[in-house]
């Protein structure tokens, strides 16, 4: 009677057991025998009843000899015969039945409820990890795009939310630099479009490097010209000095620059002016670019227009801010379109104390 009750309890709890001799021949089975495969007959080997033990002779031998206290496999996956595509989970423990006689007791427990819950959690965790990985990659691609199409400083400010991504701007004191290639149009007519693109990109790389090295914000390219701002979007109290250093460094490097691939080396004319400008996002409400609007920008552009190849020309407001750091030659003042007053212009000859 006790044995019958015992069997019923094991069946209710979905627990099966098998006892095997050292040669793995089964001498007794009981409980929920549906968990066991094969013909479920006494006399078969343990791996016949529990196929997950096939190839496991080595650890079973270790259990028999006491080298291993037990052999346990958690969450064995089996196809659920009752539900198509569903998985049934079992836990198997094999241990010595009694210390004085080397026989193995294998216990199989149905842990499907726990297993399915664990599987669901693992699935979600793994999918989240894959999603997170994808997001990191996408973030990297967006970061790359942002930093290559938007000035680095502006990209930083946007990402750090110091700059609002909407049209409009603020009035700031800035220095504006323009660098424009001389002789570009003539060469563009002689070179193929691909060569022309190479020519422009290589020259602009020299200009951009010089600007970036002193923290300038490269705001736009106009064919063979580049515009850069200083003191925006971040604070640069020495913005005029930075702009002049960028211009002088650029011209120095161009003297020894080798373009390569048989392309000609051209020279830049550089113009710099300092003063107030509204700095921010300009354009349509749905598409805009970071720039500086105002007379300071226009003046810098005009000054650049009269700079000869290899020259760095600056306006009087810039000159005032760098007077003790550069040597200059005063040129004939110019009259800008729409202006009544003449504008003093200076050519930067050298930076004091520099090689």
């Amino acid at each position, binding site marked *: 009677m006790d044995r019958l009750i015992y069997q019923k309890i094991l069946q209710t709890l979905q627990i099966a057991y098998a006892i095997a001799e050292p040669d793995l021949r089964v001498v007794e089975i009981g409980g929920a025998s549906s968990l066991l495969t094969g013909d479920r007959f006494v006399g078969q080997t343990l791996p016949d009843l529990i196929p*997950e033990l096939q*190839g496991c002779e*080595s650890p079973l031998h270790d259990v028999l000899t006491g080298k291993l206290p037990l*052999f346990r496999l*958690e969450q064995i996956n089996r196809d659920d015969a009752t539900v198509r595509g569903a998985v049934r989970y079992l836990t198997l423990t094999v241990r010595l039945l009694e210390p004085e006689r080397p026989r193995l007791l294998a216990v199989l427990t149905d842990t499907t409820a726990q297993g399915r819950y664990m599987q669901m959690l*693992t*699935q979600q965790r793994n999918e989240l990890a894959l999603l997170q990985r994808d997001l990191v990659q996408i973030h990297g691609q967006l970061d790359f795009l942002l930093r290559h199409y938007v000035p680095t400083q502006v990209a930083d400010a946007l990402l750090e939310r110091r700059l609002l991504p909407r049209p409009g701007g603020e009035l700031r004191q800035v220095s504006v630099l323009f660098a424009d290639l001389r002789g570009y149009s003539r060469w563009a007519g002689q070179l193929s479009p691909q060569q022309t693109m190479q020519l422009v990109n290589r020259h602009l790389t020299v200009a951009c490097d010089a600007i970036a090295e002193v923290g300038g914000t490269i705001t736009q390219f106009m064919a063979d010209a580049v515009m850069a701002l200083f003191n925006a979007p971040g604070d640069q109290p020495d913005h005029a000095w930075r702009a002049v250093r960028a211009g002088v460094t650029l011209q120095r490097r161009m003297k020894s620059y080798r373009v390569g691939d048989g392309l000609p080396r051209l020279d830049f004319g550089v113009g710099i002016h300092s003063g107030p400008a509204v700095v921010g996002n300009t354009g349509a409400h749905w598409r805009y670019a970071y720039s500086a609007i105002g007379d300071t920008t226009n003046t810098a552009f005009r000054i650049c227009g009269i700079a000869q190849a290899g020259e760095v020309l600056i306006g009087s407001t810039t000159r005032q801010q760098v007077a003790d750091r550069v040597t200059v030659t005063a040129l004939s003042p110019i009259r800008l379109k729409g202006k009544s007053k003449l504008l003093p212009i200076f050519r930067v000859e050298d930076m004091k104390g520099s090689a």
Partner: protein
Amino acid sequence: MGISKKVCLVGDFAVGKTSLIRRFVYDLFDDKYLSTIGVKVSRKRIMLPSAEGADAPLTELTMMLWDLAGSEEFTQVRASYLRGTAGALLVCDLTRAETLESLRSYADDLWSVSPSARVVLAANKQDLVEERQLTVEQIEAAAADLGAPFYLTSAKTGQGVEAAFYHLGRLLLA
């Protein structure tokens, strides 16, 4: 008379271990990712020549394929599952470079409990050409470091799958 060997598939989660077994045993593939917990054991019988040469007699090898969970929480118990392993397919995902780096630790876990286990490296998801992050040279270097032959596989198309398992089978009979 046939020989039965325990073969484990190890590697990070979602590299395609379950799919490789499904392709090899049932010649099926499902794009849906279903993470494995614990272990699923499948059986595959193959015939292999027992020696070199065209006339060598064939031997039946039953591969007991253990599909082991690649998830982190399984790491602590993985060693007990690896006990008695005769051979292993170390699986990485060609679209996730970090999965190749992990293989050394899986191999070390395996050899700590089954020192004589033979291994083959399967660089899976060969079909996802656009998303590939690993070069053949990188795979080759990792395989050389592990002393393992390697195969570029695709559980989706079946490319390289049989070749990888059969190579492992030959190593188990050698």
